[in-house]
């Protein structure tokens, strides 16, 4: 979805405040939320993709104001409200362990192939960042097939797809003002990509 979470390339957030010695959890509740998320998902509240999508569905102002673990808390509350109503049993999640899957077809692309990303704006979850939509890149690495987040987040099954690391020249992404000598590598699923002659 075209949401506030898709931050690559945005202006206006200022300088990065890099502190080296801050506490991992400045407030006690943040540590508990972190651990609760791990256990609740392991026990079947939601898979990782549904959890990420629950964060993306937050109102944009809350996304910015609640902070990192605040967003986790909000997403867990959303999922609990949606899935723990009444006495219904919680289903096991689709996956707790690794997202890698064996599939009975070969990858469509090989290292060095030129590709273009699709220009789609799905309302649901996707892992193609907006800044890399409809852009030309080159396959840099072919990974094993993995659970496809776009379907898995919405309860429409794992439908595993091959995963690729795709290299994009900075200029292709950011135009004439792009910094020289920079390449951005993005991990993208096969359906996002079409072959480029």
């Amino acid at each position, binding site marked *: 979805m075209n949401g506030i979470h898709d*931050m690559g390339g945005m202006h206006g957030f200022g*300088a990065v405040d890099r502190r080296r010695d801050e506490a991992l959890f400045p407030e006690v509740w943040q540590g508990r939320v972190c651990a609760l998320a*791990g256990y609740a998902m392991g026990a079947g509240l939601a898979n990782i993709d549904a959890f990420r999508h629950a964060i993306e*569905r937050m109102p944009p102002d809350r996304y910015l104001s609640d902070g*990192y673990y605040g967003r986790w808390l909000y997403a867990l509350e*959303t999922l609990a409200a949606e899935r723990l109503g009444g006495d219904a049993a919680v289903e096991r999640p689709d996956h*707790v362990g690794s997202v890698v899957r064996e599939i009975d077809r070969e990858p469509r692309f090989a290292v060095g192939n030129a590709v273009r990303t699709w220009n789609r704006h799905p309302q649901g979850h996707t892992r193609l*960042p907006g800044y890399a939509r409809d852009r030309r890149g080159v396959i840099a690495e072919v990974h094993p097939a993995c659970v496809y987040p776009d379907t898995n987040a919405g309860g429409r099954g794992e439908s595993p797809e091959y995963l690729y690391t795709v290299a994009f020249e900075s200029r292709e992404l950011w135009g004439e003002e792009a*910094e020289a000598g920079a390449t951005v*590598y993005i991990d993208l699923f096969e359906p996002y990509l079409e072959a480029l002659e």
Partner: protein
Amino acid sequence: MTADHQHGNDSPATRTEALEALLVKKGLVQSAAVDALVERYEQDIGPLRGARVVAEAWTDPAFRARLLEDGMPAIRELGFGDNTDAHVARLVVKENTDSVHNLVVCTLCSCYPWAVLGLPPAWYKSPAYRARAVREPRRLLAELGLDLSPDVEVRVWDSSAEVRYMVLPQRPRGTDGLGVEELTGLVTRDSMIGVEQL
């Protein structure tokens, strides 16, 4: 859009207590286990693992080759790579050289190599870092004190799926005589994300 009523107006601490009570009541978590996991995050899982991996790679060329080939099996040799980040597909380690500098980000959320670096620092999760690392990495690095020569290519790794990235920084000059333990002490978390050189 999600209604706000299920999130209430209470403080995050109060909301967390209510959430935990519900999850316990539904049988999804046990409070004692949550206590133990928080303690583990705070004390056991952290960037010291990554620092050890880097020091081994600096001193053992065969290990370095295996690490760059496929990160997860290599870190398991050192006893790391437990179920800290169980859903992850691969750990990929990218080596800095005289001509290439690597930088890791996750623009869509804040994916991070928990198995070797622990939980991400606040700045890594900040909107400013997520927004700028892919668009103006050189300017961002310069602001953070790292001025790269124009001859050095910057490679930014946006962790948009379940592949996790760690940077293998260059070994500092003048450390030829040091052993793995001393070298481990020189490796910073931020150098393994790529915002610092040693």
